[in-house]
């Protein structure tokens, strides 16, 4: 199928540069991918710590550990750190590492811009963390008590930390737009000769769609928060009803970004699954074409159903009917994707290494989250569910398996490729079980809390909600701490050593694709001569 790569002109490149310059000035897709992944891991722990603090506070009724504004600030930061800090950079990290290897390209199309789009991130993260820290200093104003949705007029009341947050969002947005442009250009211009779009590996397809979604919706968020900034400081009244503005306009702008964002988080992990399941079922992906079609359908419909996040704002009957039907229709392409995954497993010869365990977990739990999503799409019923703990349970069931577990699966799947060492399979499986069980203990009881009448984002609750909150908090501690094991496994694999097996070029028996033809770990430069695809 392909030819192997050999460096033909040693004088021309010198292998990996050393020291800090290697990372700060890096234009190498593998190094930048590694940077993205390490950054995401750091943010995962920060976001996780804030989540554990939230659950610790909710362990018992009453206000024990933190004051209400700090609680709301943690709620805000948990969401932003996880979405913009952990999941999106991790997905971008996988894209940087794997896309050039998968399509037989020597590097990303715009290597210097690649460097820029990563190095904006630490600056943005600093800004984001400052928005959390600033209120602790004298004169720092009030804490951000709005949640990540930063709805005005509440967000206009907040002190200067909101301005830090707005600029952090701008920087994060610029970073992801640059990364998306780079990925689209790479995928469209840099494929190996003979690799048509419909022969492209599925992970590349998912990222192509994701990148387009990002380019279309992130600017709208940037616009929305800019208007918020103007309202706060320059006397405009975009969102101030008293000045002729419209507070609901912000909600529309936010969710026009916010809903496609869900698919931005989800699709790269769907891409990972499309590689993991065929590998461990030892048979090709079922329905490649319908998969591509379903993905395009999800992206298209997903762009036009944002208002199902705001059923309660008092829209007209016609508008809510449209948004309800549109939202329910998304179940068709998503259902097709899940079906294709199950059909890939069906009559395969499965083995259950850690990535496959995560994949099966995703299929089961994501289906669960998807079905509670259909329930939420029904407008009259949503008038009950809206802004209750039921919603919290629902979106964690979608985003945890759908996005984060997919990334875990990807990391375990490609870690041998990146490091040249097989990770400790036994520990990997233990991590999976603790993680999944902790996750379910945390979020399953929250469905009942929501139905019984507990709103989300409250620091203190009536004693009638105690039992399930205790359960959920205990689960959250197990779930949160289990990630230390993940950290240990990753560090152990990177360090290697005699206890770990070395990985062959093809780390998994059933693996297929160009990325398994380069070395494990791959040379600093790969595919300098493009392979021929038949």
């Amino acid at each position, binding site marked *: 199928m392909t030819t192997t790569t050999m460096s033909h002109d040693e004088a021309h490149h010198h292998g990996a540069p050393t020291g800090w310059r290697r990372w700060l000035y890096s234009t190498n897709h593998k190094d930048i991918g590694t940077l993205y992944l390490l950054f995401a891991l750091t943010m995962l722990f920060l976001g996780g710590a804030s989540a554990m603090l939230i659950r610790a506070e909710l362990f018992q009724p009453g206000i024990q550990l933190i004051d209400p504004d700090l609680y709301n600030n943690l709620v805000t930061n948990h969401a932003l750190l996880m979405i913009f800090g952990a999941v999106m950079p991790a997905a971008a990290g996988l894209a940087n590492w794997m896309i050039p290897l998968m399509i037989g390209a020597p590097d990303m199309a715009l290597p210097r811009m690649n460097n820029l789009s990563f190095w904006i991130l630490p600056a943005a993260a600093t800004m984001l963390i400052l928005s959390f820290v600033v209120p602790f200093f004298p004169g720092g104003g009030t804490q951000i008590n709005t949640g990540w949705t930063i709805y005005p007029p509440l967000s206009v009341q907040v002190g200067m930390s909101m301005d830090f947050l707005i600029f952090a969002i701008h920087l994060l947005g610029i970073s992801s737009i640059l990364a998306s442009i780079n990925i689209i250009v790479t995928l469209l*211009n840099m494929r190996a000769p003979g690799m048509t779009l419909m022969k492209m590996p599925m992970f590349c397809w998912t990222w192509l769609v994701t990148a387009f979604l990002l*380019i279309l919706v992130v600017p709208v968020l940037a616009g929305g928060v800019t208007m918020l900034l103007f309202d706060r400081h320059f006397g405009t009244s975009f969102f101030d009803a008293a000045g002729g503005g419209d507070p609901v306009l912000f909600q529309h702008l936010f969710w026009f970004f916010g809903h496609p964002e869900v698919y931005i988080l989800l699709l790269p992990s769907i891409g990972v699954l499309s590689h993991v399941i065929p590998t461990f079922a030892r048979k090709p992906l079922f329905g490649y074409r319908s998969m591509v079609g379903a993905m395009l359908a999800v992206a298209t419909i997903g762009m036009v159903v944002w208002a199902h996040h705001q059923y309660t704002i008092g829209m007209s009957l016609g508008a809510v009917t449209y948004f309800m039907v549109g939202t329910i229709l998304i179940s068709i392409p998503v259902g097709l994707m899940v079906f294709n995954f199950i059909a890939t497993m069906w009559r395969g010869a499965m083995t259950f290494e850690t990535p496959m365990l995560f994949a099966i977990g995703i299929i089961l739990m994501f289906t669960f989250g998807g079905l509670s999503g259909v329930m939420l799409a029904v407008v009259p019923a949503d008038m009950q569910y809206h802004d209750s703990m039921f919603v919290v349970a629902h979106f964690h069931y979608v985003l945890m398996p759908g996005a984060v577990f997919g990334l875990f699966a990807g990391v375990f799947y490609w870690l041998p490729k990146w490091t040249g060492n097989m990770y400790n399979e036994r520990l990997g499986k233990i991590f999976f079980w603790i993680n999944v069980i902790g996750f379910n203990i945390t979020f399953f009881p929250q469905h009942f809390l929501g139905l019984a009448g507990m709103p989300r984002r409250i620091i203190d609750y009536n004693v009638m909600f105690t039992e399930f909150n205790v359960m959920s908090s205990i689960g959250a501690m197990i779930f949160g701490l289990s990630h230390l094991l993940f950290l240990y496994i990753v560090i152990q694999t990177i360090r290697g050593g005699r206890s770990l097996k070395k990985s062959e070029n093809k780390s998994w028996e059933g693996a297929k694709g160009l990325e398994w033809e380069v070395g494990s770990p791959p040379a600093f430069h790969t595919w300098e001569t493009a392979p021929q695809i038949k």
Partner: protein
Amino acid sequence: MSMPSQDDELRRKNIRLALILGGLALFFLLTSFPFWMNLFTVAGDLSR
């Protein structure tokens, strides 16, 4: 630092596509909301 060199034609093609996509993002930034309209209203109010 050391970068595999791209041939000039591919390089031009890449940059052109990147600029088109950047333009698309900018277009969305400027058109998808009544930003300028309101800004002009405010500017009008200030000058009066």
